[in-house]
């Protein structure tokens, strides 16, 4: 409980550092730190599958991708012309409204909260007998919610096709006599 609070506070500090930092290279490195903190929080919250994904995707692949993009686009950020008072005010108002809204949500780790009473007891009690898979996350992912995962895989596929369409050069071989 305490360790979760400490890690969450560190995450908030890193997020604020990302917001004020202007060197994009530092921002990407801070993003890697942020993802590892997130993965640790997820382990503390018992979401081990998600933590593994976040550590390999957030801290690994997306850091490499952002560095590749910075190499192509340059790492400096221009100074804005005006002080961003309006965005800050908008953000603070939204934060206040959301924080007021959270007071109506169930308390942390409340076993009577709707999230724990609706379909999940059935998954936990029947998954092993019905699928023979002890890891309930895998059972729900691949079997009970197979349609959902099919959709997500299709989205990943579509995003990959989109990147190919945007970035692939049509003529792969350079023309002779052109360039160097």
């Amino acid at each position, binding site marked *: *409980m305490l360790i*979760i609070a400490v890690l*969450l*506070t560190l*995450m*908030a500090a890193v*997020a604020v550092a*990302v*917001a004020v930092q202007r060197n*994009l290279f530092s*921002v990407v490195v801070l993003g890697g730190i*942020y993802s590892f903190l*997130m993965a640790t929080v*997820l382990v503390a*919250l*018992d*979401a081990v599958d*998600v933590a593994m*994904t*976040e550590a390999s995707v957030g801290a690994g692949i*997306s850091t490499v*991708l*952002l560095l590749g*993009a*910075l190499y192509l*686009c*340059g790492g400096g*950020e221009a100074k804005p012309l005006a002080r961003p008072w309006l*965005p*800050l005010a908008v*953000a603070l108002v939204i934060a206040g409204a*959301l*924080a007021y809204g*959270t007071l109506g*949500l*169930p*308390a*942390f780790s*409340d076993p009577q*909260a709707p*999230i724990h009473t609706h*379909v*999940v007891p059935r*998954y*936990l009690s029947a*998954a*092993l007998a019905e699928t023979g898979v*002890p*890891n*309930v*996350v895998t059972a*729900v*992912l691949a079997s009970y919610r197979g349609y*959902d995962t099919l959709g*997500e895989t299709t*989205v*990943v596929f579509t*995003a990959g096709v989109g*990147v190919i369409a*945007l970035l692939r050069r049509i003529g792969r071989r350079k023309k002779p006599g052109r360039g160097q």
Partner: protein
Amino acid sequence: MTAAASHYSYWITVLLMVAGLYIVIARGNLVKKLIGLSIFQTSVYLLYIAPGKLIGGTPPILAEGFRLYSNPLPHVLILTAIVVGVATLALGLAIVVRIREAYGSIEEDEILAADRAAERRPAESR
């Protein structure tokens, strides 16, 4: 439990969400905007996962001798969302790279200025 202890994870979630939103609307650099968008996204992961935790529970892998498991359903939803998130981040970065090649800049106001200048003299620009 006081409200501060029982709602702390929600408040950090709100803070992360607002930090991401602020980066998206206040900063003109397109790469920075995408990083802000992914911070926004991670706050949603937290919003889903944190209520699923039960103090004293274990990760939802069924085994002898354990009775109390944390909620597996948000884990499934967020697990796929993370991978989709990085794929869409890559798509966004690809668009930014193409914008950089077309305009020579990834600052929002410079791109808008270039667009306005091109509108003013349509005959010469092509």
